[in-house]
């Protein structure tokens, strides 16, 4: 999975060093099959997708990536914007390691 290529036009920047491929594929499958509950993601304070004002992802890396893998547009109002910059240093997508789960 080439994250730099996949995420290049999203305007989003990762802040975590690894993502788990199994989770991305599972989420992407649900999104592709229209089984993902975007209303819940949007309205449930327990499962927010969060970015800061600069586009740095604070929570929801797997879901942001899965949406791109699935080729679906994240509905309006789903992504929450944190009112200040996060403390974590932003990375480039090419730095993010995709963990396969077995060696």
């Amino acid at each position, binding site marked *: 999975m080439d994250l730099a290529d996949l995420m290049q036009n999203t305007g989003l920047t990762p802040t975590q060093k690894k993502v788990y491929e199994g989770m991305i594929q599972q989420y992407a499958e649900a999104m592709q099959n229209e089984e*993902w509950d975007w209303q819940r993601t949007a309205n449930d304070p327990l499962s927010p997708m969060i970015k800061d004002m600069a586009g740095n992802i604070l929570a929801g890396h797997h879901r942001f990536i899965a949406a791109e893998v699935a080729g679906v547009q994240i509905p309006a109002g789903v992504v929450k914007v944190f009112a200040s910059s996060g*403390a974590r240093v932003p990375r480039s997508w090419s730095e993010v390691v995709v963990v396969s789960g077995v060696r």
Partner: protein
Amino acid sequence: MGFEAYSIVLCPNEQSPLRTNQTPETVQSIAADIQERWTEFQSDAVASAYLEYPPRNDEEFLVYHTAEGLFQVRLSLNPRLGNAVNLSLRFAYCNPATVYEPFFAVTEELMRRYDLYCEVMSDFAPEQAGVPDTIETPDTLRAVLLPSIEYNRRLWQLDSDTDTEAILRPNEALACFIAPRFLAPTEPAAALTR
């Protein structure tokens, strides 16, 4: 696995019984085994109830919840990798530091019991530059994880602007400490993601 929680994934080594051709029943059996070994574990009804996708029979959610703190275990099959079983463990940084001991103890024993290695998903502290992300044996687990946990905990305290401790799940920590600081939703749909 976000900025609110420390996260590791335990994956099977080549000789592990969890390596290939596992079934949903294996996942359920390991979950039952964990609950039998540590009575502090229960099925995590909250995690199951808040899924954004249809429930799967190859996934189990457990929670360890005591006065020491709370951490979650997610067991799942990875069908794209020969149906290996993976175990993800995580805890919210707002938990008291007393959660570290049971988190380490459970992780070490799971690594021994099922012949697993540990992938550290969260960041290392700057002074840990060069430390491999993969922990091969349980003997070195604490020495690697502890500085990393403390570093990430400090970042969480900066982000959340509080060092308040609370025994919460990661998503409960977000709702409690981060959601009050969201901007009002004014962006048009296209600007949200692109």
